[in-house]
């Protein structure tokens, strides 16, 4: 670029011809090098822009393709191969036999039919959905009043209260799960307290139960429920409630008919943020649940690390993706589009 403009931000250009040219050409940054090609010097400038632009597109795009998309294709590929003893413990997809010079494609379906034939996998899958659903409802019941209370609090108090909700999230996940082991185990704090008050004289078996798993999931995922709920409730128009009150509507009815329906998007967002990761959860059922707390994440882990059956582990992953993650992402997509229209 020529002239005084090279010195950039400090140049005294207010009211100058370029600034007067105005924001119509601002689209240059955003929509590509086609617009606003009238001015001299701009051409060169746009070429550079296109180069930088390509780099900014290519680097993160390439990274995600290589390290996120390609791995899933490999998972699919290995789910369709058979396991063998060796390193790596699965058969190659393409095999060239020396005597015939032909390439054989090895694809097998039996890892998937195996998942269907053994009840373990279906039970684990349904059980994961069930545990995650109950934990999500519990998060909603506990989180809704909290989010509502923060949204209704004095504005000065909102940020500190939110910080209090988020703060445990910054400490380690494992430490938060571990905290409950110390509370729930037979010699733990809760049993000692109950025995000291005389309510029980034998320690209750609390740890390594499904109940402990629920507590663990609710405890760890509660902030994910509260934050979207708070965001929705805080934006809500208070005049609606005032109008309802003026017209003689009791507060509980106003809540049911106004607040609750208006907060549905927040409830949905929060529920998804809890439900999906909870379904695939491994650490919480492993540390707090008993051996019978069967969840699909644990099954995948065991297939991979204990049985070293990589193809079956991959098939479990593919099934989980198809029946959990893909439907939910499609649902979110459709919902997003609907909101966009509205």
């Amino acid at each position: 670029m020529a002239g005084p403009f090279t010195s950039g931000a400090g140049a005294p250009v207010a009211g100058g011809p370029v600034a007067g040219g105005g924001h119509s050409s601002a689209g240059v940054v955003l929509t590509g090098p086609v617009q606003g090609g009238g001015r001299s010097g701009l051409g060169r400038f746009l070429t550079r822009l296109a180069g930088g632009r390509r780099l900014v597109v290519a680097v993160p795009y390439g990274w995600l393709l290589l390290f996120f998309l390609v791995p899933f294709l490999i998972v699919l590929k290995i789910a369709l191969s058979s396991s063998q003893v060796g390193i790596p413990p699965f058969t190659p997809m393409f095999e060239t036999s020396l005597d015939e010079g032909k390439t054989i494609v090895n694809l097998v379906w039996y890892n998937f039919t195996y998942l269907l034939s053994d009840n373990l996998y279906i039970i684990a899958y349904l059980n994961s959905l069930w545990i995650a659903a109950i934990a999500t409802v519990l998060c909603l019941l506990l989180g809704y009043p909290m989010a509502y209370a923060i949204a209704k609090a004095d504005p000065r108090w909102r940020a500190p209260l939110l910080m209090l909700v988020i703060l445990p999230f910054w400490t380690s996940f494992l430490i938060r799960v571990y905290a409950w082991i110390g509370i729930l185990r037979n010699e733990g704090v809760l049993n000692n307290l109950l025995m000291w008050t005389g309510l029980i004289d034998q320690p209750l078996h609390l740890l390594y139960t499904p109940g402990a798993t629920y507590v663990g999931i609710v405890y760890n995922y509660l902030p994910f429920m509260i934050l979207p709920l708070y965001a929705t409730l805080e934006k809500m128009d208070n005049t609606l409630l005032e109008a309802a009150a003026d017209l003689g509507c009791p507060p509980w009815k106003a809540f049911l008919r106004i607040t609750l329906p208006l907060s549905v998007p927040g409830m949905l967002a929060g529920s998804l943020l809890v439900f999906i990761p909870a379904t695939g959860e491994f650490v919480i059922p492993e540390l707090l649940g008993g051996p019978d707390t069967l969840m699909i994440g644990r099954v995948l882990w065991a297939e991979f690390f204990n049985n070293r059956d990589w193809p079956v582990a991959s098939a479990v992953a593919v099934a989980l993706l198809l029946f959990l993650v893909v439907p939910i992402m499609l649902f979110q997509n459709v919902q997003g589009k609907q909101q966009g229209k509205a």
Partner: protein
Amino acid sequence: MPKSWFLRFGLLVGLLFLYIPILLLIVMSFNEGRLGVWTGFSLHWYAQLFQNDQLLGAAWLSVQVAFVSASGAVVLGTMAGMLLARFGAFRGRALFSGMVSAPLVMPEVIMGLAMLLLFVSLEQLTGWPEGRGMMTIILAHITFTMSFVTVVVQSRLVSLDASLEEAAMDLGARPAKVFFVITLPIIAPAIVSGWLLAFTLSLDDLVITSFVSGPGSSTLPQVVFSSVRLGVSPQINALATIVVSIVALGILGAGFYNARQEKLRRRDEQLAQQQGG
């Protein structure tokens, strides 16, 4: 809207639920005995912790991994955030935004398995990466944490209108200059919180790390997990107390810093108004 006792009660119960386990964890780290009864004050679990070479080594590895991963994730995540917030339509945008948001909801076991199979296949094809260790852990951590950075940076960019950047472009600043002189300072808070978020997530990750780490490269969560699996170990309480203290101090510090900045900004605004009027 009258203040409802029910809401206050709900908030109180929720906060107690969130904090009592952590407080108990801290109290028990100073307990002399192993069991869930108070037997006397003692610091010997801390002394044991600082002699536990395996745990300290793992902690050091974790901090290194988290530092490199968070830095990498911030660079990639900021680029991705710019791409989504400022570049409008480009070819493959839908796929890109899908790839950015998928790690946010993807079960960790699937991510971990997929990353490991990628590294194994890459090694078969190209001989790189040789075996698994710190390198593969870092690559995996950058990949799953960059999504979080992208979301933070993108939402900051969307909430700011682009007029400053547009003005600078109109005045002839080059895109790179616009980015470093205008955009970067504006989104700096988002980048800092994105880095901290990525650092914490990386430091904390167990599942993905377990898949992609090799023998001899165990991170802190892996060591903690294998010790916790065997039952309660008060050394872990001591470790937890140290982690919680660092986090609390950091967040309080950031809170005070922000409040102070806000105060200064308000004072400047007032001064400007007085001078203007």
